[in-house]
Protein backbone atom coordinates (compact mmCIF):
# COMPACT_ATOMS: atom_id res chain seq x y z
CA UNK A 1 0.00 0.00 0.00
CA UNK A 2 2.83 2.32 0.95
CA UNK A 3 4.65 1.77 -2.33
CA UNK A 4 1.47 2.22 -4.34
CA UNK A 5 0.90 5.59 -2.75
CA UNK A 6 4.48 6.54 -3.43
CA UNK A 7 4.10 5.44 -7.02
CA UNK A 8 0.97 7.51 -7.50
CA UNK A 9 2.56 10.50 -5.83
CA UNK A 10 5.60 10.13 -8.06
CA UNK A 11 3.49 10.06 -11.21
CA UNK A 12 1.45 13.03 -10.08
CA UNK A 13 4.57 15.03 -9.32
CA UNK A 14 6.14 14.37 -12.68
CA UNK A 15 2.85 15.04 -14.45
CA UNK A 16 2.51 18.37 -12.65
CA UNK A 17 6.02 19.37 -13.69
CA UNK A 18 5.35 18.26 -17.24
CA UNK A 19 2.04 20.11 -17.45
CA UNK A 20 3.61 23.25 -16.00
CA UNK A 21 6.42 23.11 -18.55
CA UNK A 22 3.97 22.58 -21.39
CA UNK A 23 1.80 25.53 -20.45
CA UNK A 24 4.69 27.83 -19.50
CA UNK A 25 6.96 27.19 -22.46
CA UNK A 26 4.02 27.26 -24.83
CA UNK A 27 2.95 30.63 -23.49
CA UNK A 28 6.52 31.92 -23.74
CA UNK A 29 6.84 30.91 -27.37
CA UNK A 30 3.42 32.25 -28.33
CA UNK A 31 4.11 35.58 -26.60
CA UNK A 32 7.45 36.05 -28.34
CA UNK A 33 5.93 35.15 -31.69
CA UNK A 34 2.95 37.42 -31.16
CA UNK A 35 5.19 40.29 -30.09
CA UNK A 36 7.48 39.98 -33.11
CA UNK A 37 4.50 39.79 -35.44
CA UNK A 38 2.71 42.71 -33.80
CA UNK A 39 5.74 44.96 -33.96
CA UNK A 40 6.31 44.09 -37.61
CA UNK A 41 2.65 44.77 -38.36
CA UNK A 42 2.83 48.18 -36.73
CA UNK A 43 6.04 48.99 -38.59
CA UNK A 44 4.52 47.99 -41.90
CA UNK A 45 1.31 49.87 -41.17
CA UNK A 46 3.31 52.96 -40.26
CA UNK A 47 5.28 52.76 -43.48
CA UNK A 48 2.33 52.07 -45.76
CA UNK A 49 -0.95 52.96 -44.06
CA UNK A 50 -2.95 52.21 -47.21
CA UNK A 51 -2.12 48.50 -46.84
CA UNK A 52 -3.61 48.38 -43.35
CA UNK A 53 -6.88 46.46 -44.12
CA UNK A 54 -5.07 43.74 -46.07
CA UNK A 55 -2.36 43.41 -43.46
CA UNK A 56 -4.87 43.37 -40.64
CA UNK A 57 -6.76 40.35 -41.95
CA UNK A 58 -3.47 38.55 -42.55
CA UNK A 59 -2.37 39.48 -39.05
CA UNK A 60 -5.48 37.99 -37.49
CA UNK A 61 -4.95 34.83 -39.49
CA UNK A 62 -1.44 34.58 -38.07
CA UNK A 63 -2.66 35.40 -34.56
CA UNK A 64 -4.79 32.29 -34.78
CA UNK A 65 -1.94 30.21 -36.15
CA UNK A 66 0.46 31.32 -33.43
CA UNK A 67 -2.13 30.99 -30.71
CA UNK A 68 -3.14 27.52 -31.84
CA UNK A 69 0.01 25.67 -30.92
CA UNK A 70 0.02 27.27 -27.49
CA UNK A 71 -3.61 26.41 -26.91
CA UNK A 72 -3.05 22.84 -28.05
CA UNK A 73 -0.27 22.45 -25.51
CA UNK A 74 -2.47 24.13 -22.90
CA UNK A 75 -5.26 21.67 -23.66
CA UNK A 76 -3.02 18.64 -23.46
CA UNK A 77 -1.34 19.96 -20.31
CA UNK A 78 -4.67 20.54 -18.60
CA UNK A 79 -5.92 17.17 -19.79
CA UNK A 80 -2.94 15.50 -18.12
CA UNK A 81 -3.41 17.59 -15.00
CA UNK A 82 -7.05 16.60 -14.51
CA UNK A 83 -7.64 13.18 -15.96
CA UNK A 84 -4.25 11.58 -16.03
CA UNK A 85 -4.27 8.50 -18.24
CA UNK A 86 -0.86 7.44 -16.92
CA UNK A 87 -2.28 7.20 -13.41
CA UNK A 88 -5.04 4.97 -14.67
CA UNK A 89 -2.50 2.37 -15.72
CA UNK A 90 -1.14 2.18 -12.16
CA UNK A 91 -4.64 1.91 -10.73
CA UNK A 92 -5.58 -0.95 -13.05
CA UNK A 93 -2.26 -2.68 -12.34
CA UNK A 94 -3.03 -2.43 -8.63
CA UNK A 95 -6.42 -3.99 -9.32
CA UNK A 96 -8.71 -1.15 -8.33
Amino acid at each position, binding site marked *: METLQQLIGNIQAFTAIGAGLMVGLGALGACIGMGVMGSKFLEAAGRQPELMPVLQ*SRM*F*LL*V*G*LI*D*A*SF*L*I*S*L*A*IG*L*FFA*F*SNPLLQAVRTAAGG
Partner: protein
Amino acid sequence: MSTEAPMGLSEYITHHLGNLTVQVGPGGFWTLQVDTLAVSLIFAVIISLWLWSFARRASSGVPSRGQAFVELVVEFVDGQVKDVFHGDSRLLGPLALTVFLWVLFMNLMDVLPIDAIPRALSLFGVEHFRAVPTAEITTTFAMSLTIFVLTIFYSFRAKGFGGYMKEVFTEPFGPWLAPLNLLMNLIEMVSKPVSLAMRLFGNMYAGELVFMLLAGMIGAGSAVLFGLGVVGYLAWGIFELLIILIQAFIFMVLSVVYIAMAQQHH
Protein backbone atom coordinates in the same frame (compact mmCIF):
# COMPACT_ATOMS: atom_id res chain seq x y z
CA MET B 1 -22.45 24.60 -10.03
CA SER B 2 -21.69 21.47 -8.05
CA THR B 3 -24.04 22.38 -5.25
CA GLU B 4 -26.05 19.26 -4.50
CA ALA B 5 -23.41 16.57 -4.76
CA PRO B 6 -20.10 17.17 -3.05
CA MET B 7 -18.06 16.62 -6.19
CA GLY B 8 -14.35 17.38 -6.36
CA LEU B 9 -12.96 19.54 -9.16
CA SER B 10 -11.31 16.56 -10.78
CA GLU B 11 -14.53 14.52 -10.78
CA TYR B 12 -16.48 17.52 -12.03
CA ILE B 13 -14.18 17.92 -15.02
CA THR B 14 -14.00 14.22 -15.80
CA HIS B 15 -17.78 14.09 -15.63
CA HIS B 16 -18.03 16.95 -18.11
CA LEU B 17 -15.58 15.29 -20.48
CA GLY B 18 -17.78 12.22 -20.83
CA ASN B 19 -19.78 11.79 -24.02
CA LEU B 20 -23.32 10.67 -24.50
CA THR B 21 -22.63 7.50 -26.42
CA VAL B 22 -24.53 4.66 -28.00
CA GLN B 23 -22.88 1.36 -28.83
CA VAL B 24 -23.98 0.22 -32.30
CA GLY B 25 -21.46 -2.53 -32.83
CA PRO B 26 -18.58 -4.38 -31.21
CA GLY B 27 -15.45 -2.51 -30.20
CA GLY B 28 -14.63 1.12 -29.51
CA PHE B 29 -14.86 2.13 -33.15
CA TRP B 30 -18.60 1.60 -33.32
CA THR B 31 -19.41 3.87 -30.41
CA LEU B 32 -21.59 6.70 -31.67
CA GLN B 33 -21.14 10.03 -29.92
CA VAL B 34 -24.78 11.03 -30.02
CA ASP B 35 -24.25 14.50 -28.52
CA THR B 36 -21.65 15.51 -31.10
CA LEU B 37 -23.70 14.15 -33.98
CA ALA B 38 -26.94 15.73 -32.77
CA VAL B 39 -25.56 19.22 -32.13
CA SER B 40 -23.59 19.38 -35.37
CA LEU B 41 -26.51 18.10 -37.45
CA ILE B 42 -28.92 20.52 -35.78
CA PHE B 43 -26.61 23.39 -36.68
CA ALA B 44 -26.20 22.15 -40.23
CA VAL B 45 -29.98 22.15 -40.64
CA ILE B 46 -30.39 25.56 -38.99
CA ILE B 47 -27.72 27.18 -41.19
CA SER B 48 -29.11 25.62 -44.35
CA LEU B 49 -32.66 26.74 -43.58
CA TRP B 50 -31.49 30.20 -42.57
CA LEU B 51 -29.49 30.85 -45.73
CA TRP B 52 -32.08 29.13 -47.93
CA SER B 53 -34.97 31.23 -46.61
CA PHE B 54 -33.10 34.46 -47.28
CA ALA B 55 -31.89 33.31 -50.69
CA ARG B 56 -35.48 32.56 -51.67
CA ARG B 57 -36.81 35.90 -50.54
CA ALA B 58 -33.82 37.87 -51.84
CA SER B 59 -34.80 41.13 -53.48
CA SER B 60 -32.69 43.42 -55.61
CA GLY B 61 -34.33 46.46 -54.05
CA VAL B 62 -33.69 47.72 -50.55
CA PRO B 63 -32.65 44.58 -48.65
CA SER B 64 -34.18 43.68 -45.33
CA ARG B 65 -31.93 43.56 -42.28
CA GLY B 66 -31.59 39.80 -42.39
CA GLN B 67 -30.80 39.82 -46.08
CA ALA B 68 -28.18 42.51 -45.59
CA PHE B 69 -26.52 40.42 -42.91
CA VAL B 70 -26.49 37.30 -45.06
CA GLU B 71 -25.08 39.32 -47.97
CA LEU B 72 -22.40 40.68 -45.65
CA VAL B 73 -21.32 37.18 -44.63
CA VAL B 74 -21.43 35.81 -48.17
CA GLU B 75 -19.45 38.71 -49.57
CA PHE B 76 -16.85 38.47 -46.81
CA VAL B 77 -16.28 34.78 -47.47
CA ASP B 78 -16.34 35.28 -51.22
CA GLY B 79 -13.73 38.03 -50.94
CA GLN B 80 -11.47 35.80 -48.90
CA VAL B 81 -11.81 32.99 -51.44
CA LYS B 82 -11.07 35.33 -54.36
CA ASP B 83 -7.97 36.61 -52.57
CA VAL B 84 -6.26 33.23 -52.58
CA PHE B 85 -7.91 31.34 -55.41
CA HIS B 86 -8.06 32.61 -58.96
CA GLY B 87 -10.15 30.23 -60.94
CA ASP B 88 -13.53 28.62 -61.12
CA SER B 89 -14.86 29.01 -57.59
CA ARG B 90 -18.28 27.47 -58.08
CA LEU B 91 -17.53 24.71 -55.60
CA LEU B 92 -14.96 26.45 -53.46
CA GLY B 93 -17.03 29.52 -52.60
CA PRO B 94 -20.01 27.62 -51.18
CA LEU B 95 -17.64 25.16 -49.52
CA ALA B 96 -15.84 27.98 -47.75
CA LEU B 97 -19.16 29.53 -46.68
CA THR B 98 -20.35 26.19 -45.31
CA VAL B 99 -17.13 25.52 -43.46
CA PHE B 100 -17.00 29.01 -41.98
CA LEU B 101 -20.58 29.19 -40.78
CA TRP B 102 -20.73 25.62 -39.56
CA VAL B 103 -17.51 25.82 -37.58
CA LEU B 104 -18.50 29.22 -36.25
CA PHE B 105 -21.87 28.03 -34.99
CA MET B 106 -20.46 24.86 -33.47
CA ASN B 107 -17.76 26.91 -31.75
CA LEU B 108 -20.37 29.34 -30.45
CA MET B 109 -21.78 26.57 -28.26
CA ASP B 110 -18.65 27.17 -26.19
CA VAL B 111 -19.89 30.53 -24.90
CA LEU B 112 -23.05 29.03 -23.43
CA PRO B 113 -22.63 28.47 -19.70
CA ILE B 114 -20.75 25.22 -19.35
CA ASP B 115 -23.37 23.61 -17.14
CA ALA B 116 -26.48 24.88 -18.89
CA ILE B 117 -27.15 22.12 -21.41
CA PRO B 118 -25.84 19.15 -19.37
CA ARG B 119 -27.85 20.29 -16.34
CA ALA B 120 -31.01 20.81 -18.37
CA LEU B 121 -30.66 17.40 -20.01
CA SER B 122 -29.87 15.69 -16.73
CA LEU B 123 -33.49 16.36 -15.76
CA PHE B 124 -34.40 13.92 -18.52
CA GLY B 125 -31.96 11.33 -17.30
CA VAL B 126 -29.13 12.10 -19.70
CA GLU B 127 -25.95 11.66 -17.74
CA HIS B 128 -23.21 13.00 -20.00
CA PHE B 129 -23.52 15.64 -22.69
CA ARG B 130 -20.75 17.57 -24.41
CA ALA B 131 -22.31 20.52 -26.13
CA VAL B 132 -19.37 21.75 -28.23
CA PRO B 133 -18.91 19.46 -31.23
CA THR B 134 -15.65 21.07 -32.29
CA ALA B 135 -14.09 20.30 -28.91
CA GLU B 136 -14.28 16.71 -30.08
CA ILE B 137 -11.39 15.30 -32.06
CA THR B 138 -13.72 13.19 -34.19
CA THR B 139 -15.58 16.20 -35.60
CA THR B 140 -12.50 18.19 -36.49
CA PHE B 141 -10.81 15.21 -38.09
CA ALA B 142 -13.94 14.38 -40.06
CA MET B 143 -13.93 17.90 -41.49
CA SER B 144 -10.21 18.06 -42.17
CA LEU B 145 -10.22 14.63 -43.83
CA THR B 146 -13.00 15.82 -46.12
CA ILE B 147 -10.79 18.75 -47.08
CA PHE B 148 -7.91 16.30 -47.56
CA VAL B 149 -9.93 14.17 -49.97
CA LEU B 150 -10.96 17.31 -51.83
CA THR B 151 -7.34 18.48 -52.19
CA ILE B 152 -6.37 15.11 -53.69
CA PHE B 153 -9.38 15.20 -56.00
CA TYR B 154 -8.48 18.72 -57.15
CA SER B 155 -4.84 17.75 -57.68
CA PHE B 156 -5.86 14.93 -59.98
CA ARG B 157 -8.36 17.10 -61.80
CA ALA B 158 -6.00 20.00 -62.36
CA LYS B 159 -2.89 18.04 -63.31
CA GLY B 160 -4.13 14.67 -64.51
CA PHE B 161 -2.87 11.37 -63.15
CA GLY B 162 0.49 11.56 -64.93
CA GLY B 163 1.12 15.17 -64.07
CA TYR B 164 0.31 14.69 -60.40
CA MET B 165 2.49 11.57 -60.15
CA LYS B 166 5.31 13.45 -61.85
CA GLU B 167 4.98 16.23 -59.30
CA VAL B 168 4.86 13.83 -56.36
CA PHE B 169 8.01 12.01 -57.46
CA THR B 170 10.11 14.88 -58.79
CA GLU B 171 8.99 17.99 -56.96
CA PRO B 172 11.42 19.39 -54.43
CA PHE B 173 14.76 17.81 -55.42
CA GLY B 174 14.43 16.65 -59.01
CA PRO B 175 14.00 13.18 -60.55
CA TRP B 176 17.18 11.60 -59.16
CA LEU B 177 15.93 11.65 -55.58
CA ALA B 178 12.47 10.19 -56.29
CA PRO B 179 12.04 8.22 -53.01
CA LEU B 180 13.04 11.24 -50.95
CA ASN B 181 10.65 13.41 -52.93
CA LEU B 182 7.84 10.94 -52.36
CA LEU B 183 8.58 10.90 -48.64
CA MET B 184 8.64 14.68 -48.39
CA ASN B 185 5.40 15.01 -50.32
CA LEU B 186 3.70 12.36 -48.20
CA ILE B 187 4.73 14.13 -45.00
CA GLU B 188 3.46 17.42 -46.37
CA MET B 189 0.21 15.80 -47.45
CA VAL B 190 -0.45 14.15 -44.08
CA SER B 191 0.60 17.12 -41.97
CA LYS B 192 -2.03 19.38 -43.52
CA PRO B 193 -5.21 17.65 -42.31
CA VAL B 194 -3.61 16.73 -38.98
CA SER B 195 -2.60 20.31 -38.21
CA LEU B 196 -5.94 21.63 -39.44
CA ALA B 197 -7.89 19.28 -37.19
CA MET B 198 -5.58 19.59 -34.17
CA ARG B 199 -5.62 23.37 -34.29
CA LEU B 200 -9.39 23.66 -34.06
CA PHE B 201 -9.70 20.81 -31.59
CA GLY B 202 -6.93 22.13 -29.33
CA ASN B 203 -8.37 25.61 -29.21
CA MET B 204 -11.89 24.53 -28.42
CA TYR B 205 -10.82 21.83 -25.97
CA ALA B 206 -8.58 24.23 -24.08
CA GLY B 207 -11.37 26.81 -24.01
CA GLU B 208 -13.80 24.26 -22.62
CA LEU B 209 -11.32 23.05 -19.99
CA VAL B 210 -10.57 26.57 -18.77
CA PHE B 211 -14.30 27.25 -18.51
CA MET B 212 -14.65 24.06 -16.46
CA LEU B 213 -11.82 25.09 -14.16
CA LEU B 214 -13.38 28.50 -13.59
CA ALA B 215 -16.80 26.94 -13.04
CA GLY B 216 -15.18 24.68 -10.48
CA MET B 217 -13.71 27.74 -8.78
CA ILE B 218 -17.14 29.39 -8.68
CA GLY B 219 -18.62 26.30 -7.06
CA ALA B 220 -15.76 25.81 -4.60
CA GLY B 221 -17.70 27.45 -1.77
CA SER B 222 -15.44 30.32 -0.72
CA ALA B 223 -16.38 33.93 -1.43
CA VAL B 224 -12.94 34.95 -2.72
CA LEU B 225 -12.78 32.05 -5.13
CA PHE B 226 -16.34 32.80 -6.22
CA GLY B 227 -15.43 36.40 -7.12
CA LEU B 228 -12.23 35.36 -8.86
CA GLY B 229 -14.12 32.70 -10.76
CA VAL B 230 -16.82 35.08 -11.96
CA VAL B 231 -14.28 37.68 -13.13
CA GLY B 232 -12.17 34.99 -14.77
CA TYR B 233 -15.20 33.43 -16.45
CA LEU B 234 -16.18 36.80 -17.89
CA ALA B 235 -12.65 37.63 -19.09
CA TRP B 236 -12.07 34.21 -20.61
CA GLY B 237 -15.51 34.34 -22.22
CA ILE B 238 -14.67 37.59 -24.00
CA PHE B 239 -11.29 36.23 -25.09
CA GLU B 240 -12.95 33.02 -26.21
CA LEU B 241 -15.35 34.96 -28.45
CA LEU B 242 -12.32 36.31 -30.32
CA ILE B 243 -10.77 32.84 -30.54
CA ILE B 244 -14.01 31.33 -31.81
CA LEU B 245 -14.21 33.81 -34.67
CA ILE B 246 -10.52 33.58 -35.54
CA GLN B 247 -10.48 29.78 -35.51
CA ALA B 248 -13.54 29.53 -37.75
CA PHE B 249 -11.92 32.07 -40.08
CA ILE B 250 -8.60 30.21 -40.09
CA PHE B 251 -10.23 26.86 -40.75
CA MET B 252 -12.00 28.35 -43.75
CA VAL B 253 -8.98 30.22 -45.13
CA LEU B 254 -6.64 27.26 -44.73
CA SER B 255 -9.11 24.89 -46.40
CA VAL B 256 -9.30 27.25 -49.36
CA VAL B 257 -5.53 27.72 -49.41
CA TYR B 258 -4.89 23.96 -49.39
CA ILE B 259 -7.32 23.37 -52.24
CA ALA B 260 -5.91 26.33 -54.19
CA MET B 261 -2.39 24.98 -53.67
CA ALA B 262 -3.48 21.60 -54.99
CA GLN B 263 -4.56 23.24 -58.25
CA GLN B 264 -1.38 25.21 -58.80
CA HIS B 265 1.16 24.05 -61.33
CA HIS B 266 4.71 24.31 -60.14
